């Protein structure tokens, strides 16, 4: 179905949308039988180089419950200067500015190629971006030094008018006042005491305008009406000050006795950061950037006590309900995350430590506010440094790749309802006629808030077909969905991006082939995976796996071609053929398997899975494996142990890791130093090729993956071995009798076994 593939690709390029189904079953009943829900992956801010924003405001449908935006699907009466809303059929007058409208003189939003269009809103005060650094000082000296340097470096990357603030914490929490000359001044808070936003503002002197006003006034002649806080200052004014201040940051001076963890007040520090912004800059774009080098050990939000002999909770502890602080801490951070989301700010977490840092508890801070989560071993690694730098990367327009305080509103034609969304968002709890009662992900609303987002942030949005079976939709009928994303652009403008898409309805009984052909198995796999991961947050791992399995089996039963009870006869059409394989790898992925992962790692992986776009998500589900050899150009190979050959170099990209693996022979050659001999220059090139490719991937990826260069027998080869399909294991090594490939020591089932079993179940009439 080349045409469908093209169509899908084209749509994705233009609108940043991929649907699981591109032809929609026209009745509720049929839709439910399709197993994979009607859903889409939406990348609201997908970079579209050929989409210049228009300089005016959108025209809204006048029906208060609708408020849809004028789009190419609307019927327009050019003579009467009327347009009919394609969602509610309300007839609307064009605003006066559209007086000159005619068939030949159409505004952009009526042109079909502008199914996605971006409006720039000129009104309203523009508030500068805010970056509030929250820095842990309980670090090793070199770690802290590296972090300080990164932070200092970042100052040069910030937009010059951005406001910056600095909070440091250890045993105490210090809010640094950046405005004063001479003596550096900071407000200090006890790290063990939870304070309300009001208290925090009182203590920072933010409630009484007396002090700050008088200090701010002379220095700032009305430059920014907002700048009333001594703690957040325009970078161009305090660049030097802040650089010095960061340079002088000391490690937390409180002594840490033998056998203790340093006392780290992450919970209070975040709480103060949130309170500070809440009081001074509600509803403007702001990033709270938390840099932490260890788990919170005191106060609200503490994750582990300061006794080193009691280790931080593991999945084992959690399953045994043995994680003392987890629930309380999670509650604390959830509360903070929700407050932050309400204020439209986002929280980034940069956690660099060898042990866990409490990401499990803090994950909601990043998840709910659209913040970044970065996990590394040390601040003194290129992983962190480059990742951090990448946050401030710019797009082709020279704008930062970040947007703030977005609300996403979804409108559907009446045959559809919205079931929910999964992604870095929180519900705005806007009920409406198009909101389904059945929730998938974060549901019960037609609007979500996404406090921080970048061009790759992708939400899964799930729909429900509500058209009744007995009310068929006429042939050629189309369903429409409109996504309206209002956000603050990094240039501080407000913008509205409107994407309106339409798909054909098809009767599932008569036109199943059409529907089948329009199935987007990649999107479906990711959407199902998101559902699975979403469930995994709250349910037991095995239950989720069972659910996924059942869905897969049902899908196969529905769309496979087979003879009952004859597994060998089972066939899937091209549009479904890869889906079971995705599911196989998904089941093995760290998103659903916690074995061998710490709770922090699981949280970290899931965080990224829930916000990356389709391609990246697929890589996460099923890592990509390239093979380099003298036989020809690099080629993608099966993620299978059989691909591990002695004379190959493998490059695996799991999204989180880039692994370069030298086969046994290659490794020996390299050891022998052939690459340095002029007559073996081609070997040198061969060695170099994957490095170059890896570099390319590293350059583009956020967060920066862990880069692993290993070889046959190397300890780090485990990263590769754990991912490939264990087609050869110690169990069947000899049975297969092949000379290729490398056996994996595992009891996990291989894809082959999985598929065989799947076929058996699919054709069985029992289930």
């Amino acid at each position, binding site marked *: 179905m080349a045409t469908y593939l093209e169509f899908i690709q084209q749509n994705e390029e233009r609108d940043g949308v991929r649907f699981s189904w591109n032809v929609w079953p026209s009745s509720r009943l049929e839709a439910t039988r399709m197993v994979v829900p009607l859903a889409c992956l939406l990348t609201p801010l997908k970079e579209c180089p050929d989409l210049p924003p228009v300089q005016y405001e959108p025209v809204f449908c006048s029906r208060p419950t609708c408020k849809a935006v004028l789009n190419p699907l609307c019927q327009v009466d050019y003579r009467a200067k009327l347009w009919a809303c394609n969602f509610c059929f309300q007839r609307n007058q064009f605003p006066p500015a559209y007086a000159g409208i005619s068939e030949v003189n159409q505004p952009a939003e009526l042109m079909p190629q502008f199914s996605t269009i971006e409006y720039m809103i000129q009104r309203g005060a523009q508030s500068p971006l805010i970056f509030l650094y929250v820095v842990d000082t309980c670090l090793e000296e070199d770690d802290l030094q590296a972090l300080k340097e990164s932070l200092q470096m970042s100052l040069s990357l910030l937009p010059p008018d951005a406001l910056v603030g600095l909070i440091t914490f250890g045993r*105490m929490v*210090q809010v640094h*006042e950046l405005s*004063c000359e*001479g*003596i*550096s*001044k*900071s*407000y*200090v*808070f*006890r790290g063990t*005491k939870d*304070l309300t936003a009001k208290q925090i503002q*009182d*203590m*920072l*002197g933010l409630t009484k305008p*007396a*002090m700050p006003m*008088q*200090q701010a006034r002379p220095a700032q002649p009305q430059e920014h009406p907002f700048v009333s806080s001594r703690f957040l200052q325009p970078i161009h004014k305090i660049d030097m000050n802040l650089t010095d201040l960061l340079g*002088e940051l*000391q490690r937390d*001076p*409180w*002594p840490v006795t033998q056998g203790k963890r340093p006392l780290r007040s992450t919970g209070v520090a975040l709480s103060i950061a949130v309170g500070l912004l809440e009081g001074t800059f509600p509803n403007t774009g702001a990033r709270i950037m938390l840099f932490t080098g260890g788990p919170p050990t005191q106060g609200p939000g503490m994750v582990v006590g300061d006794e080193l002999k009691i280790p931080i909770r593991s999945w084992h502890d959690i399953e045994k309900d043995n994680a003392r602080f987890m629930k309380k801490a999670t509650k604390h951070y959830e509360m903070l995350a929700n407050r932050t989301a309400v204020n439209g700010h986002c929280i980034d977490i940069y956690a660099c430590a060898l042990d866990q840092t409490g990401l499990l508890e803090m994950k909601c801070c990043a998840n709910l506010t659209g913040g970044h989560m970065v996990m590394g071993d040390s601040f003194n690694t290129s992983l962190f440094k480059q990742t951090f730098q990448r946050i401030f990367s710019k797009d082709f327009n020279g704008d930062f790749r970040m947007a703030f305080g977005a609300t996403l509103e979804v409108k559907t034609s009446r045959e559809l309802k919205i079931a929910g969304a999964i992604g870095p968002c929180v519900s705005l709890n806007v009920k409406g006629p198009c909101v389904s009662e059945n929730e998938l992900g974060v549901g019960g609303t037609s609007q979500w808030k996404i406090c921080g987002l970048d061009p790759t942030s992708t939400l899964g949005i799930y729909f429900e077909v509500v058209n009744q079976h007995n009310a068929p939709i006429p042939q050629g009928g189309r369903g429409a969905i409109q996504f309206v994303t209002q956000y603050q652009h990094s240039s501080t403008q407000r913008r509205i991006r409107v994407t309106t898409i339409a798909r054909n309805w098809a009767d599932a009984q008569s036109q199943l082939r059409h529907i089948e052909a329009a199935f987007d198995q990649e999107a479906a796999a990711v959407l199902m995976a998101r559902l699975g991961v979403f469930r995994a947050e709250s349910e037991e791992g095995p239950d989720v796996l069972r659910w996924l399995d059942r869905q897969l089996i049902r899908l196969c039963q529905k769309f496979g071609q087979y003879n009952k009870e004859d597994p060998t006869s089972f066939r899937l059409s091209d549009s479904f053929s890869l889906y079971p394989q995705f599911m196989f790898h998904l089941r093995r992925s760290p998103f659903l398997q916690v074995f061998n992962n710490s709770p922090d790692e699981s949280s970290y992986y899931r965080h990224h899975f829930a916000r990356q776009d389709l391609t990246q998500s697929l890589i996460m589900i099923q890592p990509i494996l390239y093979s380099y050899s003298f036989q020809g150009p690099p080629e993608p190979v099966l993620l299978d142990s059989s691909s591990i050959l002695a004379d190959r170099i493998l490059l695996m990209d799991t999204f989180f890791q880039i692994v370069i693996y030298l086969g046994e022979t290659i490794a020996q050659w390299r050891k022998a130093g052939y690459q340095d001999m002029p007559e073996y220059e081609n070997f040198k090139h061969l060695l170099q090729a994957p490095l170059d490719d890896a570099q390319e991937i590293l350059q583009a990826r956020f967060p920066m993956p862990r880069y692993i260069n290993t070889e046959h027998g190397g300890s780090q080869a485990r990263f590769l071995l754990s991912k490939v399909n264990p087609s050869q294991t110690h169990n069947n090594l000899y049975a297969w009798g092949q000379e290729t490939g490398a056996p994996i020591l595992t009891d996990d089932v291989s894809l082959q076994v999985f598929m065989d079993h799947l076929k058996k179940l699919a054709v069985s009439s029992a289930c």
Partner: protein
Amino acid sequence: MNVNQSVPPVPPFGQPQPVYPAYHQSSYGGQPGSTAPPTPYGAYNGPVPGYQQAPPQGVSRAPTSSGAPPASTAQAPCGQAAYGQFGQGDVQNGPSSTVQMQRLPGSQPFGSPLAPVVSQPAVLQPYGSPPTSAQVTTQLAGMQISGAVAPAPPSSGLSYGPPTSLASASGSFPNSGLYGSYPQGQAPPVGQAQGYLGVQTPQRSAPSQASSFTPPASGGPRMPSMTGPLLPGQGFGGPSVSQPNHVSSPPPQALPPGTQMTGPPGPPPPMHSPQQPGYQLQQNGSFGPARGPQPNYGSPYPGVPTFGSQPGPPQPLPPKRLDPDAIPSPIQVIEDDRNNRGTEPFVTGVRGQVPPLVTTNFLVKDQGNASPRYIRCTSYNIPCTSDMAKQAQVPLAAVIKPLARLPPEEASPYVVDHGESGPLRCNRCKAYMCPFMQFIEGGRRFQCCFCSCINDVPPQYFQHLDHTGKRVDAYDRPELSLGSYEFLATVDYCKNNKFPSPPAFIFMIDVSYNAIRTGLVRLLCEELKSLLDFLPREGGAEESAIRVGFVTYNKVLHFYNVKSSLAQPQMMVVSDVADMFVPLLDGFLVNVNESRAVITSLLDQIPEMFADTRETETVFAPVIQAGMEALKAAECAGKLFLFHTSLPIAEAPGKLKNRDDRKLINTDKEKTLFQPQTGAYQTLAKECVAQGCCVDLFLFPNQYVDVATLSVVPQLTGGSVYKYACFQVENDQERFLSDLRRDVQKVVGFDAVMRVRTSTGIRAVDFFGAFYMSNTTDVELAGLDGDKTVTVEFKHDDRLNEESGALLQCALLYTSCAGQRRLRIHNLALNCCTQLADLYRNCETDTLINYMAKFAYRGVLNSPVKAVRDTLITQCAQILACYRKNCASPSSAGQLILPECMKLLPVYLNCVLKSDVLQPGAEVTTDDRAYVRQLVTSMDVAETNVFFYPRLLPLTKSPIESTTEPPAVRASEERLSNGDIYLLENGLNLFLWVGASVQQGVVQSLFSVSSFSQIISGLSVLPVLDNPLSKKVRGLIDSLRAQRSRYMKLIVVKQEDKLEMLFKHFLVEDKSLSGGASYVDFLCHMHKEIRQLLS
């Protein structure tokens, strides 16, 4: 003279005596001698005699005053002068002085604003309308007198007999005369004097006619005294003489002086000489002429016991009033003691020896008992039984100043190191090894002198005994031969069994609007920069071990990181005042030398940073809490210096409200004014003590700040409170800075525990001072400096043995400012008696007053002030009645007989009773009272002495070139001559009173202005002029200041100026505006009380 006086501290002992003779000669030598110096004197000489005579008449005063002008150059206090001469040396000790302190504290006095208003009317009365003043006094006098009279109509009359004096008193009107005189003219001093005399005579007659008392009251007494002094200005002897024979004086002519006196005009010179001898006699025998009379007040009049011969004269006059010159004079007593005891070192080897008065300069040789500088007792002879003690009602108390500073001639206590075993102690009572321990069994054991327990001598301490049973090495070991010594403490004596780290000083500066506005912050920061070089250090240490930290605050606290590695200090704001904590550890407390650059930078910037502050609210308790927490975090003891301006009304723990309510005065609720508003501060203080955190508080209030509450923590932690009402940099800078310098530099012991052990039979039951007690025996002091005193009261719990006497051992465990843990031990052995007379013969009135004042000042916390006053009076009456009943030779009931050692008890007690705490004047604020109350609590004997009875020094009476302090005069208006200039000091305040008719030349050379009227009233600094008089006066002022633990701000008061009211507060022998009785009246009252008890 002044100069010398200032010097006194150093050569105190020796000088006076030699000096005296010299003066005597000159002065007596005849006025001629005196004449030598300036002609004026000579001129006066003539008049002098006249004056002397005058005194008796009472008129004298007036004349003196008038006459004064010329005399001014000479020393004002004539009569007293005589004493003065003797006492010059004494002056240093500041025999006189006192009561006024309290007033001064009154912010108003200084605060020019209030003072003027109040004073004006007052002033007018006294001066303007002599009559009015007279009336007032008369009323008071009348009442008292009448009272007195009633009881003892005839005889009493006699006793008061002084009435004659009264008459003279009436003569006092001379006051009026005086006043009149002022205006009239200074010119004719002599003439005036005479004139007055004339006047007086009439008056006298009048008074006498009138009932005895009314007129006499205040006026009478004053007059005489005044006259005396004034005249004598030149001839010192003259007046003095008259006084000594107080009794006699009343009957002016009749008395011995009388002869001279009568001669007024003529005999002046001779008088002196005779007098002197007289005094000496007095000293010797209790009754010597001078003293004799005093002890028996009545006696003078009755003359019987005391005066022997003298009495004769008094009797004739009896019917009227007491002659002020006839009643015991503090000046005289001090003078005598100086003369008699100032020459020989006081050797402490003898048990139960009464030391010289605190006003006497003497050297101490430690031969087994603690120096009186460390311990003074109310009595050095304790009744053997509690029954006796109850009968006598003499409180048994010791005033202990464990870290007292010693004059350079005396060695500080030796430090004994007993190594790891630590000091040797009795196993049972834990008393420390001391000279009284008895070694037995050839030195193998020792018997504890406190509990009689027999202990083994550890092998390493063993030593053979000589034939007297003394250890052979007794004189090699301080703990076996001295009264005071120190042990190095072992780790067992340390908190948490860890040797302490060096202490820290934390400066906590209020930077609210008020503090900034007055310039305080700038001044303070500037001063600290240099002051930090003078932190106390131990012995020869090169630099102080003390670390420093800085905090500023308004309603939030700012901590500073001044780590040496920083380029700039860092400020850390803590606004969570409800739950105070210390935001940093490293870099907060630093070594001054290492962090000097950062500290200097900080101190430079603090005034700038807050220059624009609008914050007026402050917190207080959290500030202390913060300092305490900082010390806790640093695991050391230390001291907080708080500089605070206002009532802490910001929302925080320890928040206070303005509860100042003058209406409560004289009600049952008055005590609440002294009580802290909230218990929070006590709790806080307790925590501070546990941490060894001493708090010194500097207050700069513009209005009510509730000193009673704010001073709770300093009080309980052994800290000091300084108060500068209406602080203005121009006016108060010097005072504040001096106090600050002294406070920062003085040697302090930290984290101290004091325990007083006694031999069986008595027990320490009550303690007064600035400290905290968590049980009944251990006095816990977070900090203790050389100025702080603890008064301990003892009670019997068994019979004492006359032979073994009673022993005290005061052990103070403390951390020195270098961080060394030490034990300081003071031992004192007292006698025990079975005869009450022995008790009365070995009392010390000054110490008694110290105890009683502290007792009373604590009493006001719980009882109505009136009750407290009554208790004091009753107790005093009982003491005296007991003496009269049991010890005095039989005499008529109408006779007032006082024990020699206690003859000043009434006058001093009166001073206590009319102090601001117990009888506040209208202008005394609640804060002042609380402040004074708190100050007195930790005063030593010398301080209470001068505080309650201020020292009044005539400046122009002695020759300019004399180098000693001029002899003091009695604190009474009568003693002032309007031609003289006087200095008055009480340890807190310093006044320079300028008579209206002071010679122009004097005015010029002191103030650099041409006339009296051009002198700026309230001036606080004398211009630096290069002439002998200016140098001398300024030198004297400096030396006075050097003697006191707090800087005394000078206030220049012009006669008849509104400020004079303030000054008059301190003339404690006079009736006070707030209703305090005059000395004479009070004495009458005492007599009445005693008589009632006896009957």
